[in-house]
């Protein structure tokens, strides 16, 4: 069954001209990649553009694809590079007010647009939208290096070794960045610590 095949096998199938294989890959990865980009650039429009560009690069490079590394490593390397390039193009990276545009160079909406609406899980219903905005804001306060590591580890469940491959730095550096990120977020979210204590840890 094509749906059960590994990413690498599907990519090889697409390399042989099987478009259905790419469709499965896209359906499998578009959401996590999009959320990674969205949390990184904090602009939905920009995130969609970068998502499209990331998969377009996959399409264009399909002929040269070789099964040397995990497909996800390759895909997130592309996505991460796009995010870093985009971030470097941005003039200012400051903590935004909820009403101010996320990026001064584009009119891509506000932080409220980034934060999800009513799709909260039932056990998380108590977590207010304000907390989510605060979380997003805290993420934006992280440096790019810390943010990308944190996003990959927390939201994509990538092992540190794979993150080091994507980012291109030693594993220990990745761990250091992760620890810095957690330290910083802990300080940023100090006010929600009591609420966090009430949350069941998964």
């Amino acid at each position, binding site marked *: 069954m094509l749906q059960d095949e590994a990413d690498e096998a599907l990519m090889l199938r697409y390399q042989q001209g099987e478009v259905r294989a790419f469709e499965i890959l896209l359906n499998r990865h578009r959401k996590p990649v999009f959320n990674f980009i969205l949390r990184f650039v904090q602009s939905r429009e920009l995130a969609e553009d970068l998502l499209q560009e990331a998969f*377009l690069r996959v399409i264009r490079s399909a002929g040269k694809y070789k099964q040397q590394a995990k497909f996800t490593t390759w895909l997130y390397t592309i996505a991460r590079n796009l995010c870093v390039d985009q971030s470097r193009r941005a003039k200012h990276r400051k903590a935004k007010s909820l009403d101010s545009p996320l990026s001064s160079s584009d009119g891509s909406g506000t932080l409220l647009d980034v934060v999800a609406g009513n799709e909260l899980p039932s056990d998380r219903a108590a977590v207010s939208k304000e907390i989510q905005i605060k979380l997003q804001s805290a993420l934006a306060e992280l440096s790019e290096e810390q943010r990308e590591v944190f996003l990959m580890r927390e939201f994509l469940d990538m092992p540190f070794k794979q993150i080091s491959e994507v980012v291109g730095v030693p594993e220990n550096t990745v761990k250091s960045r992760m620890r810095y990120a957690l330290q910083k977020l802990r300080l940023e979210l100090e006010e929600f*610590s009591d609420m966090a204590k009430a949350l069941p840890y998964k």
Partner: protein
Amino acid sequence: MSDKINTDVLEDEKETSDLLALLYPEDGAETEGSEFVSDDEFLGMQRVRSLFRDMPEQEPSDAVTNRLLAMAAQHAPKPAAGSKGIFAWFSDLLMPLVAQPGFAAAATLVLVVGVAGTLYVKGGAEMAQPQVSSRAEAPSEDPVYSSNVANEPIGEGAAAGLLGGKSIKGGDRAVFKEGKASKGNSATPGKQRKSRSKSAVGDLNFGGGQGTGSGPGGGGQADERRVIGIVDAPDVSPKSKAPRGGTEVAAEPVVVTPEQQVRAPTRSSEQKNKPSPKPKKRPATQSYDKLSSAPPAPPADAVGANDDSDEADEADKKDEDKKASPKAPNLHAKAISAAKRGDCARVLSLGRQIRSIDSGYYDRTFLQDARLKACRSVKK
């Protein structure tokens, strides 16, 4: 500031590893011996992770997905050709070699040398082929010919008999005897003149000068056309028209060429209508053309116009030739082959056999064959 990150502590890789191993046990890192990790820090980080764990995810718009699918279909790599064919496979194999100038030059050199070598070998074979065919008079049609020639013993007694009782000893390979005064040398002067160039052949005698020319010209009237006369018999049976080279043709030694058919009108209609019991061999003509120094026989029409009696004689001889045993031409051919090899003893033996089979053929054709000249020089 209490919030300040103590960089000294953060730089401690051991501590960081232990902390992260506790936070992310699924990574498989060892967690024991984490004495540097404070509970407070660990718990604080765990709470942070709990807050982010349930951040809701968003879906990209369907427009992006559809666009990507369209692009994927548009830019889908072409399926790899499964059956590229032998030429494509061969070119793929050679391309890396040809792409290198050094390899290309070497390959060209190898190609040229290979072609030249092939042509050389082939050319040599083609050069040798006419000799073989002329020697053996279509040896290819007689597969056992060469082995027979090689293995057939020549009895001393037989040779001695041919030599008029003289035995052949050691290197004594005398076979022929110049029979200028032989009985058969009774050709008329005119005819002698006519066949001057080949009179030596006519004078040739075997086995102690017993060669007697049959017919009006006798041995001395050895017309070259006698030799050709073997093939002059225009057997135009369908079988004889069959192309050469097949086994069937090999069994039928004669193939009538258009040239021979042109000569056919010189024969009487009676002869023409008479079915030939056995076709004659063509190789006599071939060997004549290639090896004999004598000029080719004139067209039969021209011969007939000059001399009516010759024509009559010719017709008689042809009849006799036709009646001759089919073995005689074969033996004749073997004799020619043996003469080419210088095996005059063999020629002598074959001549004896021919004479015993068909003395007429022996007198008219065998004795007068210029190709057997080589053995004439060997004195008895």
